[in-house]
């Protein structure tokens, strides 16, 4: 029995992203493709998303010109591949406030947004620091926070303090403070609806970029594999490793059940297809009675 279908939907990508950004210490090891994706969770009379991407109207030229981001498509186009419209999305879990995750709230007019309160309060704190500490403000657009003001006025923004169980039936939020960002969180789907679930999926946000963050090279310490954290951490890599352990506990150490949205190779581990726009749709699981969106 599965309550929810889950799809990872690519909306853009960077063809050549330096590997050290996704894997701590991987200096001079070349480049990897970095897909930009959000996650759609559909079932129990809800359509939810994990993150909403960014708005090309605001950033497209800058990103295209300077950072090689290519093939951005709007949510209407991307979500149509899984039979969903942006207007149908009723819930959004914002894993963190970086622009490529929280930068397109206006395209989801009926959604209620959940974000960790710490993610906002610490960004406000960081913005109060002297200019020499500006690094702490990286990748956050004040405009995204301004749009958060609008959400708050419309009572469509919910700040969360720590963990939250059953925010939708069988869906939980878990904080990872001072890790990738100040108030990052991950989303857990207990897809059988049970408290002690045997069908758990972890949607990791940017706490896990690629498979090697869970199964990194361990030869230096005489192990086959060790957790090797993400390269970019406003908090600390230690907290990323601790969060990885918590996520692994939730899936009974079956790393296959932790979904890294920036990982191109999930196309090899889950059924996937490429849309006519050249973007990947990956089907993590299907709710009972739902029809595959990737089958030929």
């Amino acid at each position: 029995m599965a309550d929810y279908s889950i799809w990872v939907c690519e909306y853009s990508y960077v063809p050549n992203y330096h590997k050290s950004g996704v894997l701590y210490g991987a200096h001079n090891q070349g480049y990897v493709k970095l897909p930009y994706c959000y996650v759609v969770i559909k079932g129990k009379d809800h359509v939810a998303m994990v993150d909403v991407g960014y708005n090309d109207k605001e950033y497209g030229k800058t990103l295209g010109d300077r950072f090689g981001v290519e093939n951005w498509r709007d949510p209407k186009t991307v979500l149509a591949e899984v039979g969903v419209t942006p207007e149908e999305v009723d819930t959004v879990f914002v894993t963190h406030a970086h622009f490529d995750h929280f930068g397109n709230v206006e395209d989801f007019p009926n959604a209620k947004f959940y974000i960790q309160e710490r993610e906002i309060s610490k960004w406000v704190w960081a913005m109060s620091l002297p200019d020499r500490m500006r690094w702490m403000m990286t990748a956050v657009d004040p405009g995204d926070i301004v749009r958060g003001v609008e959400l708050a006025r419309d009572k469509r923004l919910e700040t969360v303090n720590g963990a939250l169980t059953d925010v939708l039936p069988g869906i939980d939020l878990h904080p990872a403070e001072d890790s990738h960002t100040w108030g990052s969180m991950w989303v857990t789907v207990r897809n059988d609806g049970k408290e002690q679930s045997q069908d758990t999926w972890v949607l990791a946000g940017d706490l896990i970029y690629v498979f090697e963050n869970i199964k990194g090279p361990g030869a230096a310490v005489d192990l086959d594999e060790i957790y090797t954290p993400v390269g970019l951490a406003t908090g600390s890599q230690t907290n990323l490793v601790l969060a990885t352990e918590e996520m692994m506990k939730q899936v009974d150490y079956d790393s296959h059940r932790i979904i890294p949205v920036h990982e191109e190779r999930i196309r090899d581990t889950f059924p996937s297809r490429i849309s006519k726009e050249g973007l990947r749709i990956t089907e993590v699981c299907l709710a009972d009675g739902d029809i595959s969106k990737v089958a030929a």
Partner: protein
Amino acid sequence: MSEADLFTRLTSVHRPDCEIFAEGPLPQPAPDPDTMAQTLGNEEAARYAEACRVPFEDLRRVIGQIAGLMILAQLSRKADIADLTELTVCRDRWQTCAAHLDTLRPPAPLAPHRDQLAAAHAFSGKALRSFDALRPQADNTPVFDDIARLVRRAYAHLSAATSPKAGLEMADLTHACCSCGR
């Protein structure tokens, strides 16, 4: 980019009926990034663009802080947000920004650009002053509505003054998830 293109950009970001335009004039078209880049060959324009970086960064932070503090005040229903150190720092930066703006000497074609920065400063100042109207155990909805309107207006003016080629950008992407490090 022509003025017509800029108009398209502004109107595609903000609907014509957007309440952000309800008070006072529209955010005025400022020299867009391409135009500004072309004028950077002029020494006076280059000096102006360089001098803009400090007040632009001031405003970027002031606006972000006002927005964040308003969200926290509204969602936590705490009026004592007005006593936070962060708000004091924000006010100090707003004051400092005024001094920085006073030193800007744009060449005539770039005067509208400075006007956008000045408008962003003026509206963020109004938003900051509105925090004083928050009252404990009161319905502060009208105050929040005011702050929201003013900070969006300030952001619209600052957005009109962005210029990536001059280093005037809303998001610092130098170390961002999207940055390829090149």
